[in-house]
């Protein structure tokens, strides 16, 4: 039985729920989880119920890393740290945007904890608004396509690079669609002393507009098109990379999601899709994916 218990209010096919499940099942019972506000926090803890089978604390939206710093300090001071792992699990809005300061402080101070970003690429719990993690041209309610807009005009913030620049000993990207790989990375991150970071891709059927049964399929396409490179960095250097056999063109990934459907209404060559393909091509070069 998983340490993330059933009966939670996640959507049918929820990627965040899978991420939460994989993190807990990778780490076991001796873990304290800190959550910022977000889908995962809200749908797992409607009073008086909780889906978390481990100690869990939620304070505010922007302070998970600061709260985790305090938990770590308390356990150290009280002599209760032992092998207990402290894990902050937060969404992309809480991590890349409003919580960035607290994360920067916690990583700079070198607390022994792991921060896992569950990235569904928008503020989902408030109804699908654009975040710093929203990819180019994605349709969100605050970056909708229209007569003079093709959707989100901005590139995704490179959070793993920001964390690596803080000197973190271990930074990795993962995807819920590659569960054994994700669980291995989470375990490794937790076991390495100091502040470590895993950035997990978690497709959201409600926000990205695809059928809930396709969550894993969509996640795989992100990796297979090189839009979501899977890699590990240790002390700032890339140490492992998941290579792609038979890379797919980005259309294969974009066309199965309603949030990109506006890109397909143009006949002939689409300059927007071309820009997205360039992101994938750059990833291949930068990370040596082929």
């Amino acid at each position: 039985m998983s340490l993330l218990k059933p009966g939670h209010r996640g959507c049918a096919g929820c990627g965040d729920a899978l991420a939460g499940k994989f993190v807990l099942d990778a780490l076991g019972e001796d873990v304290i989880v800190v959550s910022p506000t977000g889908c995962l926090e809200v749908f797992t803890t409607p009073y008086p119920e909780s889906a978390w089978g481990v100690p869990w604390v939620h304070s505010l939206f922007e302070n998970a890393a600061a709260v985790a710093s305090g938990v770590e300090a308390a356990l150290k001071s009280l002599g209760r740290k032992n092998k207990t792992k402290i894990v902050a699990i937060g969404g992309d809005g809480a991590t890349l945007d409003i919580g960035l300061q607290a994360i920067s402080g916690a990583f700079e101070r070198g607390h022994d904890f792991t921060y896992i970003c569950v990235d569904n690429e928008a503020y989902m719990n408030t109804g699908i608004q654009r975040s710093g993690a929203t990819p180019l041209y994605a349709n969100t309610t605050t970056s909708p396509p229209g007569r003079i807009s093709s959707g989100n005009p901005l590139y995704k913030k490179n959070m793993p690079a920001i964390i690596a620049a803080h000197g973190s000993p271990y930074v990795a990207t993962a995807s819920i669609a590659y569960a054994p790989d994700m669980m291995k990375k989470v375990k490794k991150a937790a076991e390495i002393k100091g502040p470590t970071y895993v950035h997990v891709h978690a497709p959201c059927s409600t926000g990205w507009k695809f059928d809930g049964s396709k969550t894993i399929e969509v996640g795989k396409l992100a990796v297979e098109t090189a839009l979501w490179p899977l890699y590990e960095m240790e002390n700032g250097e890339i140490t492992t990379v998941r290579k792609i056999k038979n890379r797919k063109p980005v259309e294969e990934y974009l066309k199965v999601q309603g949030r990109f459907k506006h890109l397909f209404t143009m006949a002939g060559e689409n300059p927007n899709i071309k820009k997205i393909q360039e992101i994938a091509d750059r990833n291949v070069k930068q990370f040596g994916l082929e």
Partner: protein
Amino acid sequence: MKLVIKTVTKPGSTRANKTGAWRSFMPVFDHKLCSKCGICAIYCPEGIVYKLENGYFEPDYEYCKGCGICANECPKKAIKMVLEGK
């Protein structure tokens, strides 16, 4: 029910909420086609696909939301989503 201060809640108490009532489609598992790979159990967001003693898998229909990930991912196409009659 006594209100516990600190908004403290007991672990796993969401089990009181039977989300099986949510679904329209239910997964039907055909063990004859199953290769016991366990992918259905891994990718169930509710964590409610369990391994039986004989090594095959079955969902707990009290919680299954009918999302269809198990059926979509099964490499042997051993799971079919069937409209549930009420």
